[in-house]
């Protein structure tokens, strides 16, 4: 189960397009922080949508808006997917 994430479609959350539906591929960073993100709904397998990219990145995840700092968004690897139903 070693990490084997590589895909030409993958990008980090920071560079994903606003309005795009995304699938979480991998969380990088401190285990404690990844654990907290999963508890907040951002788990590998989850589909979500990036809705804003201002001073923070806002995503619709499991029916809630989660805001991420740009630094954090660099550690979140995502891939585009089909439209997410609300």
């Amino acid at each position: 189960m070693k990490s084997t994430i590589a895909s030409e479609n993958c990008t980090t959350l920071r560079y994903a397009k606003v309005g795009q539906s995304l699938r979480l591929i991998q969380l990088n960073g401190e285990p404690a922080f990844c654990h907290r993100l999963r508890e907040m709904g951002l788990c590998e397998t989850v589909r979500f949508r990036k809705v804003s990219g201002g001073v923070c990145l806002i995503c619709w995840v499991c029916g809630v808006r989660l805001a991420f700092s740009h630094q954090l968004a660099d550690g979140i690897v995502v891939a585009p997917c089909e439209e997410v139903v609300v």
Partner: protein
Amino acid sequence: MLNTTCSSSKQIAVALVGNPNCGKTTLFNALTGLRQKVGNYPGVTVEKKTGNFSGPHGELIRLIDLPGTYGLNPTSPDERITTEVLLGLRTDTYPPDCIMCIADATSLRRHLFLVSQVFELRIPVILVLTMMDLLKRLGKTIHAAKLSKELGCPVIPCNAFTRSGLVELRQLAVKYRKKPPSLLPEEPFSPLREATTRLSTATPEGHRTAARLALLEPCASRLSLYGLPASLIKEVVQEQATLDSKYVRWRYITAAARYRRIQGICSRAVYCSSQQQAVLDITDQLDHFLTHPVWGWVTFAFVMTVMFLTIFIVAAYPMDWIQSGISLAKNWVKSTCPRGDLTDLFSDGMMSGLGGVLVFLPQILILFFFIGLLENTGYMARAAFIMDRLMSRVGLHGKSFIPLLSSFACAIPGIMSTRAIPDARDRLATILIAPFMSCSARIPIYTLMIALLLPSKMPFAYLAKAGLMFSMYAVGVAVAFTCGWILKRTILRGNISCPMVMELPPYRFPLFSSILQQVYQRAVIFLKRAGTVILGISILLWFFSTYPKSSIQSQEDALAHSFAGKIGLALAPVFQPLGFNWKISIGLLCAQAAREVFISTLGIVYSVEGRAEEMTKPLREVLLRDHWPDGRPVFTPLVCVTIMVFFALSLQCVGTVAITRRETGSWGWAIFQLAYMFIIAYGVALVVYQTGCLFSLG
């Protein structure tokens, strides 16, 4: 120590558990009739609160409102309280007989993640669904009976405002005692399953739940929080090390399995009347603007400017009324009561002392009203993100912003809300700088000094006053950030603050009843403080400034001869380099208990000293007449600015010292905070005054 004692047979203990900002405290207030603070941002409740309510047949039920959490592995001190209560680790709280899990129906999937963890505690669970009206607006419904069958626990849709569902909750709190089934009967990842089995075999029955949670704990330093014996912690560390060496992301498998199971449940119990595609709602549209890199800052500055302008413009009317009322009352006492010490005590001591502070009540309440608006609308969480980049440059966590913003109202709740900050060093740094934020107690001092500086008749007076007041707030913020930067690079040096993630609540129309309730509570607190601390100090100060009586004719010499005068004269050399005379020094000494006392002290000192015709004049006019022996005015613009700077940066609040001691668990940090803030306040005020004198501004 594991607290396994059952609650007494007469009283049933029920705990409210849920994600942050899902409506726990609103339900708590609805059930108990209490009025705990609610808000529209995560992290309002940072300590457990208890209240009582009755069952259908008069059974006494103790309700425990716990801080919101996303999971049972705590990351911050407030979440730790929740885990400790649920695991029965707290000696001050019985383990609950029943848990009410609160879930926001609009984000059921995410909320059920915590619910599924709570199920594994093997304590009866009642699932309470809130925000059902919002769900309906989204074109969705939850089939409560079906969800109940899927989960194996009662599901009650509830609305605290219309009070629907409360009767069922009261009934279930008394009679429902069935332990819930686990949503994940078997650990899906076999190496983790084997590790759990090994750990369970070596663990006494009472510690098994805690041991399972500890095994998933990603932070080794937090393993001691689960109340496990040292030998067991060692085994947990070994098991984690084995899993870490073989598998990179083993923790994610359990989380993913939970979400898959929850997804299955939701697909069977949640119905969409129309297959809506994701569309941007009003909150998203507002967020595009309010979190914009440029417009976000512009809006933030605009909100702050409006707040300060309102504090001056709107509050001016009630302040005038209070001032006139106090003058009338003093006149009445002077004219109807016989001359003597008792009359002087009433008019010069109590009325001057209390009146001087009460006049600023409208400004303080307007400030609390605005903070309530920010909290209720949901803007507070956005403001935290606007400030995040700035905070991270200083070395602080973005979440530090909310405690710092709360400290503009009062440093005590501000310091308490640092419990939501995960990192201990970030938390301590925030506690140490929070009192630099200009709290409401500083408003009377700023207002009085600004009134001395800027006459009301000058053009654009309100704008100039608001600008000057804003600059004092800016001084506090700038020094706080500088100190934070220094602290994080010296005594609190540690890892770089973890990046910020936060749930943004939807914008909501403010609930004015809730805001006015908070404003009312603050008014009561202020009046109680005025009626106890300030009144007590006023009476004492009147005594010290009146006795010993002397035959000296000059009122100023008589005051100098009094106990207070002697103390002030003894302190004068310390504060003279700042341009303060001995009467201001008395004020600074008395203000150590609470900042507002400075105003009441000046009111008393100048009343005792003043001539009969000056007794009922506003304090501003009396202060402007004070002169040094060489004829120079005491309250020059430079001295007024120096006083404001000194008060902006010094810690003069016994309550803040006490709360710092409690939150840091150390008198050392509390004394350090008191000392370093005094040194900074004195140093900066000295630089301001002496620089001003160099340019002949004094």
